[in-house]
């Protein structure tokens, strides 16, 4: 087992190095001079230009710059934003919990609904329910999610306000403005609950609904389909037929025996969905003004805030690698054949 872990880790290292190379080279691939990029509209006088160039270390040979970049990244020194001059890492830490909270809620919703839908579709294979579930999931990942978000905003805000104002869901932000919640954990649900203020938790929850639905739509579709095909495969297995023959109730058969085994590939897929979630977060956060890292990265790109773009790419990619690694390890724990293969 240990050998397996070490081997997997060894594979990760070159990938990680590759990502640092990618992030590092970003600012050097862009046409133009990074210092001029920083300067804004005013033309820099040459002395100041040289001074900044030297201060940022941009006049040293490339390999030396890369080395220093790598070293600093390991120490979480990812430079400062060109716009706010705040450390990239600390900006990231401030915004990351919002994205995590949204992603967890979206994933939770997607998993619960997806598993249920997938199981039902598998049990009632060929029925209207089955076709309906499959059709809806396919529609779910065929739609542009930003459009889906806009439609929901249109419906929940414009239309709902006319019909049932009290039920209209908020379409922006994480919390109603009158609550001043101390950011203890960065997770609004937890912080609101801890603050004990009347209505705060409910407000936080209502702000999560629409963004979580939008972000969770594609994972929901994927999970539903995966669960269904996995369940179908499991349901034909001998041991299931044996269980049925033994007289166990169908519900028990499905949920206790079949589902447990059907879940394995689904778990793998959930791990892979982290990438999808982060990508989807970019669009979702833009539409719902959700102050997370997705919006942060998009703003940084349009403002040419390169340290943020570099840092963001590095951190995001590292996260995805780590999650994939964990999923692989978990899969290996569950399935001994993988451990000893290759």
């Amino acid at each position, binding site marked *: 087992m240990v050998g397996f872990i070490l081997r997997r880790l060894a*594979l990760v290292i070159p990938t990680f190095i*590759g990502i640092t190379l990618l992030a590092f080279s970003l600012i050097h691939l862009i046409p133009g001079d990074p210092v001029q990029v920083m300067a804004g509209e005013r033309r820099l006088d040459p002395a100041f230009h040289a001074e900044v160039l030297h201060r940022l270390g941009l006049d040293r040979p490339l390999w030396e710059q890369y080395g220093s970049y790598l070293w600093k990244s390991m120490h979480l020194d990812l430079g400062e934003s060109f716009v706010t001059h705040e450390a990239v890492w600390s900006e990231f830490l401030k915004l990351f919990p919002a994205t995590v909270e949204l992603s967890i809620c979206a994933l939770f919703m997607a998993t619960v609904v997806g598993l249920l839908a997938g199981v039902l579709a598998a049990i009632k294979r060929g029925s209207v329910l089955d076709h309906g579930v499959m059709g809806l999931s*396919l529609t779910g990942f065929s739609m542009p999610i930003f459009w889906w978000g806009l439609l929901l905003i249109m419906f929940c805000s*414009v239309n709902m306000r006319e019909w049932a104002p009290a039920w209209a869901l908020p379409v922006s932000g994480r919390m109603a403005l009158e609550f001043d919640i101390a950011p203890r954990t960065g997770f609004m649900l937890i912080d609101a609950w801890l603050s004990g203020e009347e209505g705060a938790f409910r407000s936080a929850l209502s702000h999560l609904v629409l963004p979580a639905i939008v972000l969770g739509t594609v994972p929901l579709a*994927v999970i539903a389909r995966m669960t269904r095909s996995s369940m179908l495969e499991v349901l034909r297995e001998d041991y299931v037929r044996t269980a049925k023959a033994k007289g166990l109730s169908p519900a028990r058969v499905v949920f206790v025996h079949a589902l447990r085994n059907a879940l394995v590939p689904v778990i793998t897929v959930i791990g*892979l969905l982290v*990438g999808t979630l982060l*990508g989807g977060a970019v669009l979702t956060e833009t539409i719902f003004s959700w102050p997370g890292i997705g919006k942060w*990265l998009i703003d940084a790109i349009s403002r040419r805030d390169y340290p943020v773009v570099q840092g963001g790419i590095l951190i995001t990619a590292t996260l995805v690698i780590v999650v994939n690694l964990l999923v692989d390890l978990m899969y290996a724990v569950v399935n001994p054949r993988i451990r000893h293969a290759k």
Partner: protein
Amino acid sequence: MSAVLSTEESSAAGAPPASSLSDFWRSFATNKGAVAGLFVFVFVILCALFANLLAPHDAIEQYRDALLTPPMWAEGGSSKFILGTDDIGRDVLSRLLFGARLSLLIGFVAVLLSMLPGMALGLTAAFFPRVGVAILRLMDVMLALPSLLLAIAVVAVLGPGLLNTMLAIAIVAVPSYVRLVRASSMSELTKDYVVASRLAGAGTFRLMFNTVLPNCMAPVIVTATLGFSDAILTAAALGFLGLGAQPPTPEWGTMLASARDYIERANWVVTLPGLAILVTVLSINLMGDGLRDALDPRMKKLS
């Protein structure tokens, strides 16, 4: 998104080659959804091909006195603009039709630009394992980033525009082809008939292209189909973020970007381009499902 599904479900491929066209069509046709998807897709292609005949107006002509006209069936609409006009008086129907050209072009070019290098790299990785390790690591790096973020980063470097959008999408899609072709090739390489060919003195290139590659095509075709729809969605996302096709190009995603302001006043500007994207992508995905089932009997048994 759909790449996740295809890698998972198609990794079991490496199936025996599809025997004949009629066999293939028969298994494809049993999936009604796939057939419906095919019809809709053909309809979209026809719309794109004959856009200049079908479109009542020019896609970029601005009718200055008919800004934000509602569609024909709504109050204030007119039959001159069947689906209404947008914020600077351009006919929505015409823009949708010409936009179909763009979306299909983007899908096609992006898939081609990713499939060809992807297959080449995959074959190289399989036939020359030493180089293969390096190639695989590089692909891992690219796969580590969520595809939308990577596409955005590429466009950030190259600059916005239609061509760069296609390039960015293509670059992002290459790794899945590489992995797929490499896996298929490697399993083919162990098979008896390949070993026999090698012994008989067949050269590497001949082996690659005549023997091994045709047997890997099934999952590649499925991936390409799903890649096509993914390309359309990503191009729309980039257009929406302002990083894609620039005005006045009638790309569907770009149309949605300016539509955000009109959720209340002119919802047709929001709903229609999105519907166009949905219908096109859905039809391609339905076809993709059908293709996968038809080309890989093992998967078919389960659905």
